[in-house]
């Protein structure tokens, strides 16, 4: 039994903002203060410290085939020294934990390679995790969309989530990756997907309908088309309008809020995008904040990555995954002296600051795409400390401030708002009821930070981190290795869907249908979220 005393507690879900509260922990959960403790009480004195729920990352690339392919391709960035952007499974767990993060979602998994993702997730210490199943280019999905068969689609989604042991439904460049396998892409919601006669609009809207009909805890996690292209704010707005106010999560929105036609007139349209998000109360987003330095871009949006390779001439990995998906990896450097890069940096901050409801905008860097997750504390400082923000703006390309509104924004985040965008908000959006807060019954994932003047320092190394009630980090150092659990959803489905699926896999797949789904052996510590 552990008692945390004297700390300033920030628990936005329970409307606690900086009050000194006691928190009691037993059996991995937060409990009511006992009248008479049955077991010895370990006391953590958090005087002069901030007590928050453990951090929850809604979108990061930490495990699986493309993360590993990135590691293999770039031996130069995970040695020692500057510019690290890729970590081993073990480092991933430790580095997240020392920042007080305890739950992280791997954001893209092709079902065919889901076994790989789970195998790696099992080697990440401390963290609870889950993964999102890619469906926007899946042939089973495209087939249902073509036939406008929502009922089968629901069952297919449920089956894919089960087979891949996924946590949520992910869509990446719906239809675009399928077209890429013929050398193309999609540029608008109404472009045609070759051979299928469907459009991205139909794929996205039907998948959102299916997701909601199934009552999945998280909304569709949507990576739109035209990633990173000038002028793409139009397709972002178009996508939001097409969904007519339904629940959806737009991921790394920063990469979709650009104006202009090319490099020369590249500019921010974060204001328009933020307004649309503000107007649609069921929409949540994460930002994908750019961090200056060396990164490794990796996404299932394979055609976008080919474009990036053509621009940079850097190494390029592309993998087509049959019937399901693709992936691309390209190393990249974000430079403060580059006008485009510094505008991208500013766009991310604009979104944070212009989207009014912190419960709907979450802190991510789309690790390791826009920056490594280890830089979250710097982003927190940028949001909380306007002087620091302006100091950093001073080092950027001067064009940045003519083409963004960042310089005019005075808002600073409060600690409560930071607690929302880094834990309470993502947990709520994921439907993780026991995460992101410190109410009785919540998982005892608790981050305790020593107060200080420099917010980056404060959030870089937690003074204490409890994971499932166990002390894992003390003064920023690992004191105990633990293994977290894997979340997955389970939703009822018509058993007849298996026949449909099996038939397709036997014809067009290359592994036996029985060997396709991820076995229970790969989820030794799972928590199943049951729907309906």
């Amino acid at each position, binding site marked *: 039994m552990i008692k945390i005393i004297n700390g300033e507690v920030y628990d936005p879900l329970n409307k606690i903002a900086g009050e000194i509260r006691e928190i009691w922990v037993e059996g991995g959960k937060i409990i009511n203060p006992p009248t008479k403790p049955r077991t010895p009480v370990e006391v953590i004195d958090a005087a002069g410290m901030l007590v928050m729920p453990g951090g929850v990352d809604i979108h990061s690339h930490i495990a699986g085939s493309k993360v590993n392919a990135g590691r293999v*391709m*770039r*031996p*130069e*960035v995970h040695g020692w020294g500057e510019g690290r952007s890729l970590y081993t499974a073990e480092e991933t767990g430790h580095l997240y934990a020392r920042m007080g993060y305890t739950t992280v979602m791997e954001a893209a998994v092709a079902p065919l390679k889901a076994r790989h993702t789970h195998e790696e997730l099992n080697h990440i210490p401390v963290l609870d995790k889950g993964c999102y199943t890619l469906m926007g280019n899946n042939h089973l999905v495209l087939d249902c969309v073509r036939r406008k068969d929502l009922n089968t689609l629901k069952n297919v989604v449920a089956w894919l989530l089960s087979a891949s042991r996924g946590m949520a439904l992910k869509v990446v460049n719906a239809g675009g990756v399928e077209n890429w396998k013929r050398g193309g892409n999609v540029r608008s919601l109404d472009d045609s997907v070759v051979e299928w006669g469907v459009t991205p609009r139909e794929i996205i809207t039907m998948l959102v309908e299916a997701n909601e009909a199934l009552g999945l805890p998280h909304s569709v996690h949507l990576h739109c088309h035209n990633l990173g292209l000038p002028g793409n704010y139009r397709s972002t707005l178009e996508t939001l309008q097409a969904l007519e106010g339904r629940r959806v999560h737009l991921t790394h929105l920063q990469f979709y809020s650009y104006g202009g036609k090319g490099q020369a007139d590249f500019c921010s349209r974060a204001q328009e995008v933020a307004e649309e998000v503000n107007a649609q109360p069921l929409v949540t987003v994460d930002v994908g904040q750019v961090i200056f330095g060396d990164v490794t871009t990796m996404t299932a949006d394979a055609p976008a990555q080919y474009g990036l390779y053509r621009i940079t001439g850097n190494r390029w990995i592309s993998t087509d995954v049959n019937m399901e998906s693709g992936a691309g990896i390209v190393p990249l450097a974000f430079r403060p002296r580059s006008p485009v890069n510094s505008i991208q940096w500013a766009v991310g901050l604009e979104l944070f600051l212009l989207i009014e409801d912190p419960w709907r905008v979450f802190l991510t860097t789309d690790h390791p795409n826009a920056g490594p997750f280890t830089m979250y504390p710097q982003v927190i400082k940028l949001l909380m400390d306007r002087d620091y923000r302006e100091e950093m703006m001073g080092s950027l390309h001067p064009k940045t401030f003519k083409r963004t509104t960042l310089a005019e924004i005075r808002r600073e985040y409060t600690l409560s708002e930071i607690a929302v965008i880094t834990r309470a908000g993502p947990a709520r959006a994921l439907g993780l009821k026991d995460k992101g807060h410190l109410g009785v019954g919540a998982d005892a994932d608790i981050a305790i930070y020593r107060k200080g003047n420099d917010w980056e320092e404060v959030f870089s190394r937690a003074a204490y981190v409890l994971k499932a009630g166990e002390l894992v980090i003390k003064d920023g150092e690992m004191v105990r290795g633990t293994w977290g659990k894997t979340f997955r959803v389970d939703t009822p489905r018509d058993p007849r869907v298996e026949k449909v699926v099996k038939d397709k896999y036997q014809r067009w797949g290359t592994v036996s249908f029985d060997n396709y789904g991820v076995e229970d052996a790969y989820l030794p510590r799972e928590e199943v979220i049951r729907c309906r």
Partner: protein
Amino acid sequence: MRVMNKIELTLKEETTIPLEAEVISPDLLAGLRHQEICRLPVYLGRHKARLGDLFSIKGERSSQIYVQGNLSRVKKMGWGMSTGRLCIAGNGGMHLGAGMTGGEIVVDGNTGDWLGAQMQGGLIRIRGSAGNLVGAAYRGNHTGMNRGLIVIEGNAGNMIGEHMRRGVIVVHGDVGDFPGAMMRGGTLVLAGPVGEGPGAGMHRGTIVVLGPCRILPSFKYAAAYKPVFLLLLYRWLKGQGVEIPGDKVEAEYRRYCGDLAETGKGEILLWHEAN
């Protein structure tokens, strides 16, 4: 206190287990007293040891370092050095002078792979032969040697100057396959016979070939001429103590452009009598 003008290190016992001794570098030793030098950490296989355990050491506080013994298993000497002089009486191991930015390394014998890898300045002179990947980039990097001069009086292995960006490498003896592979710039002077595929995948840079060699099909013959640049280069080399035989100085060279599978901005200058 008597200040000696050099530090002498003698390997006590030859080792088959690799010894990693990046501390043998003028930058570090120049400021240290004898006792401190003896206590510097080295790694013998998986065990940490002290420099004094493996070497008998004379002298202190000097940037002139003399190392003796068969050091072919001693890796990383002169790693990143920026100043001073490191003389090796014998063979040197892998990664010698890798990443160095200045100063001079002289080796009487042979050295291992990765000599002067990612070097950024200074001079390395090898009386014997060197291994593979001289002046190359470490895996995953796209910039190898980026300034400085490496002179090898004996032979050199495969892939010398791989991903080289700037600087000059001169090899008097034979070289192995793919010298100047994926070069981004800089100059290789190969005085002896050359293995397969010189300049494979090169983007820019110059490979001067004085011995026999086969040119890849993705290089195209341009012209026979007397490049003024070579006169300049050879004279500059002479100033660094590197002699190129007179018949190759005032001579005609055949220029091949390549690698045309890449940008085609590189060149091989082949001495007209070489083939």
